[in-house]
């Protein structure tokens, strides 16, 4: 006998599982960007804690903003939408794609502004908030001449960049995107969430791998270079956390598979042919905007 004929609202549980999946990355980002710098004397103790405190502040601020939006703007007294909001998770992801020394007075308002933009236009388009945030932040910081992917520790020492350090994440990069290992731990947690669109990372990685094999045979790139390009580009983080963001991906199976195939194939080309790693986020942004189109593909019924 199946128990529980009426199902409960599971969105809160789903969102908590999403947040749980990025906790290993947040903890590692504190170790990499804060603890190492503090331990080696490049940063004092309290500033080093910012990499633990800021994500908490961002998640808390997201709830405050959601409360304001639903209570004051939408005049909805029911707090259900606030509690079940996916925004704290996406905002925490936005934090992870920031540079380690990015200024808070730019990043936090940008996150809030994006929330507002998404709230008003996302009914027609499915915009991937994290990809949009990453692109805007990159452009903004470049314009201000403040773009830097190194943290305080990496600015002062020479960082070893062999395959193992790429895998662990001990390389220059955004706050939480460098570690392949911790991204994979996050993926393992996400796989417990049956609402996570696992076909996106699976199809993406397979199609990416196929294109990489073609690149290997038809170009001068060797296996190690391809592997380093892949690990250094943030492709794994984007594939696991950004591309499958359910609110900005197709709901139709065929559409989801086409979305993933395009993402895998094009990102393999971007990563290995251009070295323009921001291209991955631009690609996700474009693909998410095309989501209504992908939703028109009907699945051949089994």
């Amino acid at each position, binding site marked *: 006998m199946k128990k529980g004929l009426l199902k409960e609202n599971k969105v809160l549980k789903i969102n908590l599982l999403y947040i749980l999946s990025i906790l290993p990355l947040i903890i590692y980002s504190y170790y990499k960007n804060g603890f190492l710098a503090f331990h080696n004397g490049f940063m004092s103790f309290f500033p080093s804690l910012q990499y633990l405190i800021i994500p908490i502040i961002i998640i808390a601020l997201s709830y405050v903003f959601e409360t304001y939006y639903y209570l004051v703007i939408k005049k909805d007294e029911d707090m259900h939408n606030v509690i079940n909001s996916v925004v704290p998770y996406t905002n925490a992801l936005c934090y992870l794609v920031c540079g380690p020394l990015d200024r808070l007075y730019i990043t936090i308002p940008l996150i809030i502004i994006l929330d507002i933009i998404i709230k008003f236009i996302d009914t027609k388009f499915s915009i991937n908030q994290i990809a949009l945030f990453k692109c805007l932040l990159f452009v903004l910081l470049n314009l201000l001449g403040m773009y830097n992917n190194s943290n305080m520790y990496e600015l002062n020492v020479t960082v070893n960049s062999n395959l193992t350090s790429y895998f662990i994440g001990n390389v220059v990069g955004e706050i939480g995107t460098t570690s392949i290992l911790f991204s994979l731990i996050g993926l393992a947690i996400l796989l417990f969430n049956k609402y996570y669109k696992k076909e996106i990372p699976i199809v993406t990685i397979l199609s990416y791998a196929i294109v990489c094999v073609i690149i290997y045979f038809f170009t001068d790139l060797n296996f190690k270079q391809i592997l380093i390009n892949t690990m250094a580009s943030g492709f794994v983080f984007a594939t696991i956390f950004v591309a499958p963001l359910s609110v900005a991906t197709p709901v139709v*199976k065929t559409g989801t598979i086409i979305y993933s195939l395009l993402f895998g194939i094009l990102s393999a080309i971007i990563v290995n042919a251009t070295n323009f790693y921001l291209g991955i986020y631009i690609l996700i942004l474009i693909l998410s905007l095309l989501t209504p189109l992908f939703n028109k593909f009907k699945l051949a019924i089994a």
Partner: protein
Amino acid sequence: MVLLKLTYEFDNDEKKLDIEKFECLDPENITIYTREGDTIYVATGDYVYINQLIKESTSGIKTYATISGKVKVEEGQIKVINDKTNSTLVSEEALDKIDDIRKDIIIKSCENLGIEYENKLIASHLKENNKLIVVNAMDIEPYQFNNNYQFQDNITALLTTLELLSNKFNVNAYLLLNKYDDNNIDAVKKVIDKYPNIIFKIIEDVYPYTTNQCVARKYFKDYTYNDILFLDTFALYKIYVALKEGLPVSERYLTVILNDAERVAVVNAKYGANIGTIIKDIIKIDTKDKDIYLNNFMRKVKCANIDSLIITDNIKTIFIMNHEEQKSSKCIKCGKCVEICPVKINPLADKLDPSCIRCGLCNYVCPANINLNNKEK
């Protein structure tokens, strides 16, 4: 041609459930709701007999008194107060056997009594585009046992009627039973040789695979849905009674489920009897602080006041659930509703696709508790 995907298998095997059986064949009163345009044949103070015509809808569906007593016509409803005399109108058309009734008499009998199934008059279907008869003797919706009991109680009558229809209208006749319905399957197997025109088929009980639209697509690909006369056990029984007695059927089965099938009851009750009274006084379930869902819990059709519910053809199951706030939140676009949809439409679209069979599976799998069925086609 669209094929179907198997979806949810609800474990509603009767053997695993302790089903209680009740009767409500002599209610204190019955109620018949009326709509604008209905022709009403009685007035306040009239005395009516069982089987006397009370009203006819604009589409030709007729409603008869199921008890005898005094009539009270009110705004939007007619009440018959039972005088417990059990006086009934005797039909002149009562027959001993129905084996050799003419085709035109069959149509006339169904027409006279306005027998319908799924809001379509059976007589007009028999006259116009009848190429195949399919009796879907399964209880289509999860946790429903009406057809099961109806079939058990009237197996010979039903098979005889189906054989007659097949014979007289010169069309194939299919009888479908679900594979878990062991008792009825065994009973049919023993006698099916006597009915050479009936093709007996056992079908997987996977919801909503057993709905008529799905059955048509899966098993009768050579026919369009409108070519097939689909009947359930009860509609076939109505035809039988119309042919044999020349009278309408005055009672039907209703399944009542408490919580997660803690209690399952099947009630044979008179049309128009108050469901609230049946549940409280006969089945003895207290509905205070409970949520009431009609027919299919997945469709989330909630009933605000059980005391206004009466036995009709449209109410087949009542789910009485502990009160829980069923709050919905914003869609997270997980795609589970699209994945589960047996007819492969997108339930998230602003308007429901016309091919939607309103099975409610999209509601059932939605993690955000959104009622996706609650849209116009």
